[in-house]
Every structure is written in C-alpha cells, then in structure tokens.
C-alpha cells in the first residue's frame, strides 16, 4: 500500500528520531506465573535479531502481552531466562532496559499523564537524555509521524481514543529506543490511522530498529511482517513467514488459537493457487494463471452470488 501523501520524510525524520540500529532479544524456556496463580507463559524460546520486524499473534489471553513485558523489565521471569542486547536481563537495571526497548501499551490511558500533547511526548524525549532544542525537534518529528502535529497544544483527554493511542505511540517513539513493541497498534484506527502506523513501522525498519507488534489484524500482519509468531496457551505454536503461517497446513493450528487466515489466503487455497497470504499475492497469482482454468467455469458468477 502506498503511504498517505505528504506524510513521512524518512531521512529528515531519522535525523530527529535518534540513532539507527536495533537490539537483539531472546528468551530461553521462559515461564511466567502471575502472583494469583495464572500461568501466562509456559516455556517460550525465541530469538529475535537486531533490526528484525516481527508480529506476535494469538487469541486473547495467550500470553502475548505478558511475553513482551519481559523485554523491558516490567516483568521478571519466574522460570527460564530473557536476554536483551545479548545480556541476561537480570544483570541489567530497569532504567537501562527501558532505554533499550519501548513498549506502547494496548490501552493508552494507562500511559498518558500530561495535560498537553507536546508535554507528554517531551517527557519521553527528556528521558532519553535530550535537552533544549533537541527535545523540541524530536517532539515535532514524533507528532508529525503519528499525524498529531496540529494537536500539540491539546489536552490528551480532548483527543478521541484512537488519537490517544497515536499519542502514546509518539511518546514511546520519542525515547528513541532501538527496540519498540507496539501492542495492538491498529486497534480503533481508521484507514488514515492504519496507514500512518504502517508508514511508521516501515520507517523504523529502514532505520534498523527492532520492531515487534502484537496484533489481531491478520491482514496487517500478513502485509507488513516478514515473520509471524503464533502463541497459544503461553507457548509458541507457529513461527515463520506469512506464507507458511497462513498456509492451509497451518489453519487447524490457527483455529485452535481463535485466529483466522486472511480472506486472500483462504481464497488462494480454495482456488489451488498455493499460499497467498496477501491480497496482492492473490491477485498476482490469479493474473498469472493460464486462461481457461477458472473453477467458475464460464466466468459467470455462481448462482445466488
């Protein structure tokens, strides 16, 4: 999809957003049990390289949000281990972890506390050690990337839910962390908001940042992420490119964790076109078929539409 016009100027934004480069993340047999007894993670072993672009999917309560909270020290493993930047997290201070991995939570209202949009974003920039004009530059760049530059002086609670979510994204972005986790970034966003998020992820990826998104939006996942991790009941049950994860052979596993492949994948399989996880791939595969192979016989629409 082409980005919305006049939105992102990668080089300029990159100058304002801090250093290029990402951070490697890894877990080994990670287990986590909440104090009241819910066992949210049951042995997760993953390696995510610096600069990787990864989606995590899975049914509600499958452990996605619990997993990513281990990457910046919000939660500490009750079993197994976690490393960030090649070092075990239990040898790193929470403040250092917070400077390496930023998390944009699902619910922006757990994150926002300032009375002005720009102050909210400036807090992140100051936390990253910026001062004076540098703060202003970064605040401006981050607000522009999420399409809120005209709301800089607004009270965050005068923004609708979807814009508060974009604001929370800008605030974390302002910290310039080499790793960024977006928990349900497209939730509640309209077409423009989704395009902004996609352009932002593309930009961060170009900058070499490590980007992880948790999402229930399978089309977004299939179109944007080269690697998809599927979780169920606190474990990883699938891990691979969209072509594999959304291929027909994976459908039973997806169904067991309340996921559905994108419509393009379902149609591609039904039409014998192989794995077509995105709409572009499906249309491309259809265009390449030799003439006269249409299962719709004479090409007329089937009765009953």
């Amino acid at each position, binding site marked *: 999809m082409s980005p919305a016009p006049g939105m992102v100027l990668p080089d300029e934004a990159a100058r304002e957003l801090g250093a290029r480069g990402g951070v490697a993340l890894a877990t080994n047999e990670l287990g986590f049990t*909440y104090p*009241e007894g*819910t066992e949210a993670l049951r042995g997760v072993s993953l390696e995510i390289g610096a600069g990787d672009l990864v989606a995590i999917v*899975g*049914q*509600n*309560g499958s452990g996605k*949000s619990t997993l990513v909270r281990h990457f910046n020290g919000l939660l500490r493993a009750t079993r197994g281990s976690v490393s960030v930047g090649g070092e075990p997290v239990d040898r790193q201070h929470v403040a250092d972890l917070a400077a390496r991995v930023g998390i944009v939570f*699902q*619910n922006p*209202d*757990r994150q926002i506390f300032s009375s002005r949009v720009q102050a909210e974003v400036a807090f992140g920039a100051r936390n990253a050690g910026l001062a004076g004009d540098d703060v202003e530059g970064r605040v401006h760049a981050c607000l522009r990337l999420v399409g809120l530059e005209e709301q800089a002086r607004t009270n965050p609670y005068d923004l*609708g*839910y*979807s*814009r508060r979510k974009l604001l929370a994204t800008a605030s974390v972005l302002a910290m310039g962390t080499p790793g960024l986790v977006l928990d*349900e970034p497209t*939730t*509640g*966003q*309209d*077409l*423009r*908001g*989704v395009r902004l998020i996609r352009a932002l992820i593309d930009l961060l990826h170009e900058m070499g940042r490590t980007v992880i998104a948790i999402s*229930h939006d*399978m*089309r977004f996942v299939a179109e944007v992420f080269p690697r998809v991790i599927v979780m169920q009941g606190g474990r990883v049950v699938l891990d691979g490119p969209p072509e594999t994860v959304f291929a027909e052979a994976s459908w039973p596993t997806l*169904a067991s*964790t*309340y*996921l*559905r492949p*994108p*419509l*393009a994948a379902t*149609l591609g399989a*039904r*039409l014998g076109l192989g794995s077509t996880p995105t*709409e*572009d791939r*499906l*249309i491309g595969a*259809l*265009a390449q078929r030799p003439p006269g192979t*249409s*299962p*719709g016989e004479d*090409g007329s*629409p*089937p009765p*009953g*539409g």
Partner: protein
Amino acid sequence: MSLRLAGATYRYAGAGRPALVAVDLEVAAGAVVGVVGANESGKTTLCLVAAGLAPATIGGELTGTVEVDELHTSRQRPHELAQRCGVLFQNPSTQLSGTTGSVWEEIGFGPRNLGLSVEETVHRVDEAMRVVGIAALAERDPARLSGGQAQLVALASVLAMHPRYLILDEPTSQLDPGGTELVGDALADLAQRTGAGVLLVEHKTDLLDRVADRVVVLDAGRIVERGEARSLLGDARLPGWGVDPPARARLERAADAAGVELPEAVA
C-alpha cells in the same frame, strides 16, 4: 418499537462546533445497524446521544429528538434508561465497576442492582457468560484480565441487563478474530431471537458485512450515506470517508483493476 434520533444536533459543553449535526437514525427492534466513519467523525458522540447520556450526564446542548420506544430520553430517569439502553464504551477498563472480586460478580453487579431475585441473577450471569464465550473466566479477578477478556466481560455485563437496545462502541476492538466472530454472531442472534435493537460502531467492516442489516456513514458529524449493509459496504466511496472496505469488496476491486476474474463469489 425503535430507538430513534430525529434532527439530533449535539454540541459538547464548551465546544465551538457541534459534534453531531442533524442526525436522523432509526434502530428498529430486532435490527442491527452498523455505523462507520473516520476517527473523530462523531461515532462515539452518536453513541452517547443515542443512549441518552449526552447531555443528561455529561452536559452540552442537544436539539432535535432522541426517543426510545416513543419516550423522550430526556424525560426518563437514568436507571430507567439504563434498562432500556445498554451501552458499551470503547475502553472496557473504564466500564468495569472495580468493586468486585470475580468476573462472575462483576457481571452480576448490574442485575443485582436492579433488585432481581438471586435465581434470575444467576440465570442472567451464566447466560451472558455463555453467549460471549467466557464461562471459563468466572472465578478470575476482573482487574487481572487481558484487554480482550476485559472487553468480553464488559459486554457480558451489558447483556445481563437485558436491555431493549444495545449501543456498542467498537465492542470487538481488542478481540481476536475468533472472539470477534463469536460476538458478531451472538449480537445477530440476540437481535433475531429477542428483538433487541443493536447500534454497532465498528472499524471492522468485515464484521458489519457479516451481521449488520443496515449501515450509516458518519463524516464530520453528519450521516452522509446510508443503506442496506452489503451494498453500502461495497461502495467505492468508503475509503474517501476514511473507512476500510471489507476484504471481499477490496478483492473485487483489486481484481477489476488488474483485469482478472475472481472465479467464485468472494464471501
């Protein structure tokens, strides 16, 4: 019987311009009416006004009429209105009472406040949990749920009140695809079986394509288009209103543009 807005214009307290302008809308008993539109187009405001919460509880200025079963919402007391119109807000954590220790008690909170018998309360809570597929969460602490689970608990709490009309502001936003389908089918079934009227604000047009009878498009506070769900959701103007069409409509259009045929009915 219906929930009806006629010429409804609403301005938030202190706002210069109205957030909703001359809205005519009817949700008949047993119907599912979808609402789509860009962010800040007035969808949430429409929910507040339709539910009688604006201006009654949040102030502001309303002109035109909002009627529930031919009664003006402005002349009904809040607890009476609450039994006629169930409202689900976008952010479930603002909706949960914060006073209960388990999901079961949380869902029973509303029915108990209605003064219903214990038997009836038990029946309603169990039914509501079953309908949205969260029976397994009964003993869990409401404060320790995932976002999607909290959303289902909030929805079950509204359903347990047995309102005549349901006003739902993105009720599936945090749900996995299976949960989204389940909720969609449950709402359609509820409308058909009990005659409840459902006003359903959604960005997920695939869901509306599946369950809505009619859809209206909001743009800058006005209803700019309305129609039968399937044909309106196939309207080429949707992206211009900031609305992502359902997958089948996108695929049909992409296939047309590429000059290829989609050999089967897409949906």
